[in-house]
């Protein structure tokens, strides 16, 4: 007897039933909808500059250094808490947006600067700098296409407990460390082998080994301090390296989860599966303007500092942006809860009369 798969159930692996389906229906590698932007305007928006990212990186390093100093200097008093709070966010959340923008190579005009910050941020966010370059390229080719996109955060039916727990950072950290150890042991998963070209496998393994070595040294320093009778102070190396990815990642998750959750799967128009959300200036600095997420997916060549301008240029063709993070959650949470009962459901935003209709069906070339 042949088992007929439940159409409500999805196979998010990159080598399974939905992968075949995405290829057969033309959803994989499809031609996506783009808002028309005159070439002259787009060229201006795509222009690369070093200035904004150098300024932001200097502020970032100063905040990292200053908060680490305060956390250590005031150790044992309540004064240390706000310093560790700031350090946690600077390490465990800011790293994600720096990883992302420098991975695209758009943050700085000078490429070596993108590469240096990319490697530092990859380490902080516990992502393999080689594999994630390729996984993120796939996320852009096949955004939220089931069986193709390796970066779908909200799978259906949603695992609500896991989503909730992700705010604590522990589960994600456990997964990331597991992947790191597996890569360091010389093993790549079937999914990783699917999206990373074979010529890069060795580099991915080497990068994982370097990361594991740094974590091992950090753990050894903590153990040494403990053995030396330093008590609670021996946790300082762990609070400085690795730990912030758990206690400081909440902002990364708060902003990251609203990028796509509750919206459509298997469509070829980023206006249907991504969310643009207006945010306060501090969150926008931490997140490097990735709150303009529809715009980023449609035009990944536009650097973070030009995204607000791009938003103004294309907003006539976009569904209205969510006015706040809170509003985005008010939209996403009920949609995700409904997906627990009805995995086929997604929240669909109405378009303004000035917009082109949604593009939903792949056109075969």
């Amino acid at each position, binding site marked *: 007897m042949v088992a007929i798969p439940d159409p409500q159930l999805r196979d998010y692996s990159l080598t399974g039933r939905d992968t075949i389906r995405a290829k057969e229906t033309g959803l994989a*590698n499809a031609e996506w909808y783009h808002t028309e932007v005159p070439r002259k305007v787009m*060229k201006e928006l*795509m222009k*690369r500059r070093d200035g904004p990212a150098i300024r932001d990186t200097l502020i970032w390093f100063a905040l990292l250094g200053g908060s680490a100093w305060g956390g250590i200097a005031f150790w044992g008093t309540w004064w240390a808490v706000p310093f560790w709070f700031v350090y946690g966010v600077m390490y465990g959340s800011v790293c994600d947006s720096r990883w992302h923008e420098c991975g*695209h*190579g*758009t943050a700085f*005009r000078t*490429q070596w600067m993108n590469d240096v910050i990319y490697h530092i941020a990859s380490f902080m966010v516990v992502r393999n700098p080689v594999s994630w*370059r*390729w996984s993120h*390229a796939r996320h*852009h*080719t096949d955004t939220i296409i089931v069986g193709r996109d390796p970066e779908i955060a909200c799978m259906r039916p949603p695992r609500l407990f896991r989503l909730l727990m992700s705010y604590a950072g522990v589960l994600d950290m456990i997964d990331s460390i597991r992947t790191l150890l597996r890569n360091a042991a010389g093993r790549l998963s079937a999914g990783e082998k699917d999206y990373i*070209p074979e*010529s*890069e496998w060795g580099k991915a393994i080497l990068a994982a080994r370097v990361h594991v070595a740094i974590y091992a040294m950090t753990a050894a320093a903590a153990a040494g301090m403990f053995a030396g009778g330093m008590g609670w102070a021996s946790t300082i190396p762990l609070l400085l390296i690795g730990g912030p990815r758990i206690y400081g990642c909440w902002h990364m998750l708060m902003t990251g989860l609203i990028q796509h959750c509750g919206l459509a799967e298997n469509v070829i128009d980023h206006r249907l599966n991504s969310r643009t959300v207006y945010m306060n200036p501090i969150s926008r600095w931490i997140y490097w303007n990735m709150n303009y997420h529809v715009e980023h997916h449609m*035009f*990944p*060549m536009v650097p973070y500092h030009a995204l607000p301008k791009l938003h103004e240029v294309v907003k006539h063709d976009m569904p209205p942006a969510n006015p706040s993070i809170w509003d985005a959650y008010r939209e996403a949470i009920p949609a995700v809860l409904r997906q627990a009962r009805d995995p086929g459901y997604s929240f669909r935003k109405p378009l303004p009369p000035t917009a082109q209709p949604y593009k939903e069906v792949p056109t075969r070339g």
Partner: protein
Amino acid sequence: MAEWVDVCALDELDPEDVMRFDHGGRVYAVYRSENGTPYATDGLCTHEHVCLADGLVLGEEIECPKHNGRFNIRTGAALRAPVSVPLATYPARISAGRIEILI
């Protein structure tokens, strides 16, 4: 047998810019570098066949609009992941105020 084919008037393509050129069922990308020198390559990215003419010319490099992979427009060399296969290049020249490529 390759021949020089007319692409456009020189002033139709700004320095440090790229345009798409379709000829004989193939897509080419025709560029002018920062100093105005013309270059030509295959028009589709070797990664996922996206049209490079929607990309950005930075000095002597073209950045692909899809995943920010980069090629040298003079040599076709793949410079930045996720591109790893080089682009084919074609000779280009300015003749009587027009850009021509040898294809």
